């Protein structure tokens, strides 16, 4: 049996309430929780599908987690605690994972949670016709999903694949009946889960309502309490406009909101009638990735010059009024497993360096606008930003970058906001100078693989388009060892190579989630490890 880092027995209840970045959680633990009542929560994003397997939206997780649960839960320090599974083992050669299921767990449609149901979930996820791209992820390594007895699930992998435990432990288990439902792909009340709430009503474009699951009695030990949820009912209202969410909370029409703009944060932080919390996301920072296969950024000197030409700290401070954290690495600091903070401060704004590098690269002439050029060609890098991910004042941020690059080094960053279709085309053809983006929730360093593997080997968001052989070798090496220290060192090398040596991208800021609530709402918190807002299980309303 191999490492079971941080796995804590079912009896030891963890009192983890400390979440990175909780900035103004008021003293609210002195009161004892009361059951009953309902709550309205204004959310920014409507789920595209309610099937938890098929929904890839980080922002939809807080809603779906009310109904759907997974085998293991994570702790703040990156460990695992029992949930639907009470125990797990990994075989010595690292390719067989055995989960022991909790007894007495039932789906809300009456089906039993047993090994056959869990194995069926894994088998279905492997089918491309059911799960599309998800079938190529973690589950693609599963050769066999077996149920030798009702409480034992055995997953056999084709190879040692280190991110598997995090991935498999986090897969939501849906009722076996669901796979025969018409609603399977869109999700709905026929897709039953084991969670503390049951989907009651979904009005597309308006709200989604859940009622308490009175039979619920299998919360993970760090969930805050045991037994059924406190609330009888919770409604999530879809309010896509940030100003409207803020107004709805201040006027008492909803009790909790998420997604608060930098300008509105002070409104809740300074006001005793509300609580305000924020937590930085896991995944990758919002980073400007520079294309190594197209345009002037093919030259590493130009890429390094871009990194040196922009005073990121100042730009972030002024655009977000101190409400966002400057980023440095290939992962965000929230990815505590593998974030190597030695990268912080190891590079930075240096206009002289930027200009020297560009001179060396031959961009010595200046055109009428004061921008650098070579052989009559302007030093222009086209930034292609998808309209769909343009949020959180990123347009202002990009304009600030543009001004800095121009002023400090004579680089022209040409901004181009495109629709989804054009974005997909440019991704396919590689015809772009730079793409800024961030990812969330692909923890356990999995996101590094999507960003740095060659595109045809699974690097679906390899925006820099690097195919450096050393990067590929590192990634393969790290995936095939279960030694945490070894993986950490490899990703650390990769980070230094990608940022310092090759300048594949310029990390800008760490995306975060914000939640504000009325002062009489208690128990609103972030998930201990993934830092997304938690479901409504532990929330109660003081009357």
């Amino acid at each position, binding site marked *: 049996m191999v490492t079971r880092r941080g796995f804590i027995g079912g009896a030891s209840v963890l009192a983890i309430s400390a979440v990175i970045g909780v900035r103004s959680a008021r003293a609210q633990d002195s009161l004892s929780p009361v059951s009953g009542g309902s709550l309205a929560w*204004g959310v920014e994003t409507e789920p*595209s*599908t309610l*099937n938890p397997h*098929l929904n*890839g939206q980080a922002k939809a997780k807080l809603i779906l987690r009310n109904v759907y649960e997974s085998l293991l839960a994570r702790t703040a320090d990156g460990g695992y605690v029992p949930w639907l599974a009470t125990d797990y083992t990994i075989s010595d050669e690292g390719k067989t994972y055995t989960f022991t299921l909790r007894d007495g767990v039932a789906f809300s449609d009456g089906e039993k949670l047993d090994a056959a149901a869990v194995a069926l979930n894994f088998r279905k996820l492997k089918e*491309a*016709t059911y799960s*599309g*791209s*998800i*079938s*190529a*992820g973690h589950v693609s390594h599963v050769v066999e999903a077996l149920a030798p007895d009702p409480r034992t699930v055995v997953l056999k992998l084709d190879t040692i694949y280190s991110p598997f435990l995090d991935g498999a432990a986090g897969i939501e288990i849906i009722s076996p009946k669901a796979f025969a439902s018409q609603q399977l*792909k*869109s999700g709905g009340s026929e897709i039953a889960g084991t969670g503390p709430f049951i989907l009651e009503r979904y*009005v*597309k*474009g*308006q*709200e989604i309502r859940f009622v308490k699951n009175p039979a619920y009695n299998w919360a993970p030990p760090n969930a805050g309490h045991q037994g059924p949820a406190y609330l009888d009912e919770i409604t999530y*209202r*879809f*309010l*896509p*406009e940030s*100003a*409207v969410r803020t*107004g*709805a909370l*201040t*006027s*008492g*029409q*909803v009790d909790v909101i998420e997604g608060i703009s930098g300008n509105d944060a002070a409104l809740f932080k300074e006001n005793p009638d509300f609580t305000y919390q924020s937590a930085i996301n896991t995944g990758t920072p919002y980073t400007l990735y520079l294309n190594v296969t197209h345009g002037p950024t093919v030259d590493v000197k130009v890429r390094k010059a871009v990194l040196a030409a922009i005073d990121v700290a100042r730009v972030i401070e002024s655009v977000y009024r101190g409400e966002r954290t400057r980023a440095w690495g290939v992962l965000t600091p929230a990815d505590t497993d593998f974030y190597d903070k030695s990268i912080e401060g190891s590079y930075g704004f240096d206009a002289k360096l930027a200009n020297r590098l560009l001179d060396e690269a031959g961009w010595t002439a200046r055109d009428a606008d004061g921008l650098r050029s070579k052989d009559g060609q302007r030093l222009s890098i086209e930034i292609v930003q998808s*309209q*769909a991910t343009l949020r959180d004042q990123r347009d202002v941020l990009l304009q600030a970058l543009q001004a800095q690059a121009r002023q400090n080094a004579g680089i022209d960053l040409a901004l181009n906001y495109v*629709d*989804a*279709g*054009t*974005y*997909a*085309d440019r*991704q*396919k053809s590689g015809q772009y100078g730079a793409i800024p983006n961030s990812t969330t929730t692909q923890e356990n360093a999995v996101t590094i693989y*999507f960003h740095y593997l060659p595109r045809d080997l*699974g690097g*679906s*968001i390899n925006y820099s388009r690097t195919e450096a052989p050393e990067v590929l070798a590192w990634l393969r090496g790290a995936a095939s060892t279960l030694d945490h220290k070894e993986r950490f060192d490899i990703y650390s090398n990769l980070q230094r190579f990608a940022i310092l040596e090759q300048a594949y991208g310029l990390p800008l800021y760490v995306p975060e989630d914000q939640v504000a609530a009325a002062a009489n709402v208690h128990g609103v918190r972030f998930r201990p490890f993934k830092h997304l807002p938690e479901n409504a299980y532990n929330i109660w309303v003081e009357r």
Partner: protein
Amino acid sequence: MDVENVTALRQVPVSPASRHFSLMRATLLSQVLGRVGSGILVLWAAITLSFISLHVAPGDIVSLLIGEQLRTPVIEAAIRAEWGLDEPLFSQYLSYLWRVLHGDFGRSYILQTDVATLILSQILPTLKLTAAALVVAVVFAVISAVATAGLRWPRRIAGAMELVLVSTPSFWLGIVLLFIFSFTLKLFPVAGDRTFSALVLPALSLGLSLGAVIGQVLREGLERALEEPFALTVRSWGANGLTLRLRHGLRHAALPAVTLTGWLIGNLLSGAVITEQVFGRPGLGKITVDAVLGKDLPVVLAVAILSAFIYVVLSTLVDILYLLIDPRLRART
């Protein structure tokens, strides 16, 4: 002269009238058939144009469906097979037409639900919103036109107000209305389509700018009518100014305003997108925008069919309204 005509029509002797009616029925039948024919043509054109333009727009459907997730030949093949995208474009088009004729609008690529169910669940809130906005627009236009037509200062003030309303983005107007009436005064709820009071603010933010446009046209028509000789005749009967404006003037002024309104209802439907978003209302607006951006062909086509259908119905209604408003047109048919 108009007044005399109306009385003349009412006084036609009985026997020629029945002949007149049978004649009218024949022309009515041919008119109805013509309407249905051109309606079907419009529907077909809407389907075809939407189909072509979505395929001409950048990005292929499979890439959009996969997005930034992992992509392998197996996944691509599975997606193509699931949605019938592996067939030639023209046969996709034909099979779509065939299925629509049988009432099958397909399944949404992105939302994975049956399109007919999806649209049916979302059409009612949108219709409610547009109908309420239309009421707001008409009431606003009539009041503003009748109260101020021909009066120097009131019409200037009303005109200026209308100009402001027309040039205010409905997004901004919505936020301002919410801020005042929902967040501060707490008179109306912000979100959703639950109660009648939740309809008030969205209807105002969508309807006022439309009302401003119609109001301007209506006022001009009213002013022109008030200068015509019949106005003097009506006054000589001893009718007061309001009766003249409401009972006689408005009828004359209404024709161009009705035409404009019929045309602008299309704008209401597209303007509903933003209003629905601001107020967190369900409706067709957001679904349509998302479907176009994501090339969700079945949804786009169904919406195109629906809007073409609404236009056909509306233009028919406008034509009928003409007959009701202006008896002279009735006499001609």
